[in-house]
């Protein structure tokens, strides 16, 4: 059995705000010890590249789209080749798709 003995002194500072003790906890990255065992996760592409990538990919995509439609307009039913149409379409959609993703990211919609 324990007995509480000498000098049990209770201090109350009656405010809603708590007493300021040693150091206020700062919401910052974990201490060095933990950081050695773990590494930060970063975006696959540096964030500063997002606007540049968006502009370039979209413009390339639009150029290829333009070439796709020019091909469709200038060729007749007999001279048209399906593989060529589909590859141009696929390439254009790849660039347009990624370009619009980077456009969304660059404008702050982090999908």
């Amino acid at each position, binding site marked *: *059995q*324990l*007995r*509480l*003995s*000498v*000098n*049990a*002194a*209770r*201090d*109350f*500072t*009656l*405010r*809603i*705000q*708590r*007493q300021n003790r040693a150091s206020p*906890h*700062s*919401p*910052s*990255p*974990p201490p060095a010890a933990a*950081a050695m*065992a*773990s*590494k*930060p*996760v*970063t*975006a*696959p592409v540096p*964030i500063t590249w997002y606007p540049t990538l968006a502009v370039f990919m979209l413009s390339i995509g639009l150029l290829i789209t333009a070439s*796709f439609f020019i091909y*469709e307009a200038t060729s007749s039913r007999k001279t*048209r080749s*399906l593989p060529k*149409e*589909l590859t141009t*379409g*696929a390439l*254009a*959609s*790849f660039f*347009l*798709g*990624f370009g*619009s*993703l980077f456009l*969304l*990211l660059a404008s*702050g*919609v*982090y*999908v």
Partner: protein
Amino acid sequence: LSLSQVENTGKAAASDVLLAFPPTEAEHLAEVKAQAASGKKRKKTYAHLIVEPTDVPDAPNGAKGFRLALHNPLSPGETTTIEVLYMLTHSMEPFPAEISQSDPQLVYYRDSAYILSPYRIKQQTTFIKTPSTNVQSFSRVEPTNRAGMELKYGPYEDLPAYSYSPVLVHFENNNPFAVVEELVREVEISHWGNLQITEHYTLAHGGAKLKGVFSRVDYQSRPSASGVSSFKNLLARLPPRVHSVYYRDEIGNISSSRLRTDSRKSELEIEPRYPLFGGWKSTFIIGYGLPLEDFLFESTDGKRYLNFTFGCPLSGTVVDKLTLKVVLPEGSKDPSAVIPFPVEEHMETKYSYLDVVGRPVLVLEKKNVVPEHNIPFQVYYTFNPIFMLAEPLMLVSTVFFLFASCVAYLHIDISIRKG
């Protein structure tokens, strides 16, 4: 804050110390922390002790108990010194319950002159520090002394276990009673590089209610005599490198705010649309973005974890109910949270940008949150990086579908013609 020297008078070594709280205090208990002090006055070292709730034997009338686990068991005849810090919310009752604009705010504080303890107490003293020298009245449990802002009850000698002597202090307290009745914080993780935080606040003034009319003329012309217990601004402490901070409510943007950033912290000082008097409420939303690499890490076993601060960024406030939702990216599995204090957890799903199956959301709830709870916690989950491609591939396939339908339209012959 309770500083006690504990002596083991029994026959066997003791490895725990028990604490007890009366049921009225136990409802408002926000946090109990303990440390063991060793060494002499100037060179004290503190070792943190683990505190767990437990059942206390022979406790009268529903007292709630806590067990402190000592690092080294205390042998018979030995003494050790323990410091216990516990925080209570809503323990001061405004009396009078309604005041006019020009009155100061007076509150009651009820406590006991003796610690409620499962052990016999050889000697104890209780100090109560009030925020001002204006104390209207206080109960006397001899010997009682008052000097300036401090009331001293004791020293009392040789008290049996579980002795309790109620004490009532009536004093002036004009500190802002800022209470956040409900706070919902949503942390959305995007592996493309951003952490988006949205916080919905319901702020109230928890002090004596305002009676009569609010006169803006009196409030602005004589600030030292009018509305001394009201408050008009609050400070939110945010992490460094914060961007896109907004402060708005249902009407729209609130422009009375100021953001100051430096390399170690950011401070957002907000002023609600009106000063808050007793019983008045205000609801608003604060949102901001943070860089992902400051908060998301990959541990050695391949799991990713978010290291973030629990609690309310508004300093000097008490939160009655805090709900923290961590929205993990689509395709995350096995979420789990590591938090130093007890919270309630459950899962939800959120449908956001470019989502097919939805994002798993880990919801953590806690009542009675005080600034002591602003400590980091972790949420672990597994994520296969291949899933990040799902979003651009969705966009690519949508655009390709348009091209393919264009090709199909041009190739199909739907004219009505002979042969």
